[in-house]
């Protein structure tokens, strides 16, 4: 008998009588001002967040905040005057020198500050992890209150890879001292487009 059969047989033999799943409908999270809440939480986890009125404002702020002598990439054709549009077929290793990546997330969560990105939105899976700095654009109406709402919005959508990202990478492994920028981005900036 293979290990597969042995394991499955042992599991079937040892598992007790079935118990029901709980009602997930009881979870309701509501905030008076969802955008305000998102901004407050995102700042508290070490991120920077700005409410802006359009892409021009985003461009001005990015030019002011980041070193545009270094490599800046984006998935958004509208930003190709300040950033390089990259090929989704390039090898992931070729993005090691990216200073700033600017991408757009279809969904953000107020209760924890995270944005949801599928590989389609990332351009390539490695992009939001390998860049030194990450900037994410979100539409104001794509912010939901809770993780329950987020999964309801994601629904049965198919993707090869997707991830919640809630701030710059961090570690506190050395004496619990918080250090931003462990292996991923040193900073994360979110622009909420009104």
């Amino acid at each position, binding site marked *: 008998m293979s290990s597969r059969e042995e394991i499955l047989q042992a*599991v079937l033999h040892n598992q007790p009588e*079935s118990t029901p799943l709980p009602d997930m409908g009881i979870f309701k999270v509501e905030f008076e001002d969802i955008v305000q809440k998102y901004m407050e939480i995102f700042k508290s986890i070490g991120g920077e967040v700005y409410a802006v009125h359009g892409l021009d404002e985003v461009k001005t702020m990015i030019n002011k905040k980041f070193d545009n002598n270094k490599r800046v990439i984006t998935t958004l054709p509208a930003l190709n005057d300040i950033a390089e549009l990259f090929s989704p077929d390039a090898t992931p290793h070729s993005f090691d020198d990216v200073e700033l990546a600017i991408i757009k997330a279809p969904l953000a969560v107020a209760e924890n500050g995270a944005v949801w990105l599928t590989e389609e939105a990332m351009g390539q899976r*490695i992009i939001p992890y*390998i860049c030194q700095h990450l900037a994410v654009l979100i539409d104001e109406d794509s912010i939901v209150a809770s993780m329950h709402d987020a999964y309801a919005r994601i629904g049965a959508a198919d993707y090869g890879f997707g991830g919640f990202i809630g701030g710059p990478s961090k570690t506190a492994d*050395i004496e619990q001292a918080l250090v931003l920028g*462990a292996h991923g981005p040193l900073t994360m900036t979110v622009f909420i487009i009104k």
Partner: protein
Amino acid sequence: MRDTGTKKHAALAEEFIQDKEKADWHDGALWWIRQKRDMQANQTPQWEELREAASAIKMNVITNLHTYLLQFEANLKKNGVKVYWAANADEHNQIVYSILKEKNITEMVKSKSMLTEECNLNEYLEERGIGVINSDLGEYIQQIDNEPPSHIVLPCIHKRKEEIGALFHIHLGTEEGLSDPTALTRVARKHLRNVFLTRRAALTGANFAVAETGEYVVCTNEGNADMGAHLAEVQICSMGLEKIVPEKKHLAVFLRLLARSATGQPITIYSSHFKKPRPGQEMHLILVDAGRSRLLGREDFRNSLKCIKCGACMNTCPVYRKGSGLSYHNTITGPIGAILAPNLDMEKHADLPFASTLCGSCSNVCPVKINIHDQLYKWRQVIVKEGYVANSKALSMKAMAFTLSSPAAYQAAGKTGRWVLNYAPFAINNKFNPWYKQRDMPGGPKESFGEWYAKNQGKKED
């Protein structure tokens, strides 16, 4: 890996508390994390309902695991992921080795995985000429010090920054005496980035695996799992059978609880959902039993399969905070480790369920409501019955049972005890009695409650 030999919990904890300043720091650092957990719990509406739901979902998984495993396997295959089943640690290690060997890969990067620690995967591969580097900063530090992680979330919480600085000086060539956490982290970032860019294979664990879709979720704060996986041509995931959740919507409950319980964050920075390999990449997933199906059959203990490895029980445990995770001589340390370990090897881990005051704080903070302190108590019964306790403990327990079941013996023992405390304290306050280590006992009362009650009975009515 440095071995703790056959030393038991009490002896290992005693070694740790020799450095009083460090032991106090350790105690305080973990208690602060417990307090951050409380702040999040108090701010999150329906926190108790979330814990109830998480516990019920996991119970449903435990009671329907056979169906969910088959569903998960079918979906993995549909997604283009290659599936393996491993009955034990050895089989798991063989599978990883064969995947790497087929591709002529001699170096692998690994993100945090307690399962592969449990399997001693690194040692197994190193003996066969394959180098493994742990990429989580805490695990990396433990690896270069040749010591196992002491905490499942905070692997080197028992080390001071000066000790880490000294390790970096030897292994990464940093300036002698450098101990600033930010400076040390930057050095590790640079070194490990080169590791990520040059490894053809990356292995991760899994926090949750969704039967409904075949995707699995890996949570990190550092981004190390993603850096490894998205750059490697071969991606391997090792997961225990119990990591299954039925549907994607159930992830909401667990992702809301996990980081809040673990470190007091609203969510881990990265919660990555891996479903299909990217073009040109291979994905392999190994389902590991290694004692889990046996635990499923132990009625009193199967609840421990609900564990989501947040570490909250460790941060709150007075015994853990004082004695550190190194004293548990098991991969999973702390209260949860003490109830998981006897299922793996009752004789070797017979001391662990006794490393507790049974105060119940662990059960109170557990996000999936495992009855940890009840199970610690129940394991003690099993271990004594199976004859795995030291003779001295078995004898004193027998003497206690006799004394407590006989009123005459109880009274005589009480009288003797009071006399000894008052007139001959040296008879018990000596180095042979561990209760007197770092403690003093008050003098004994002149009379017992029984004697006092007999004398004063009826006085109030007068």
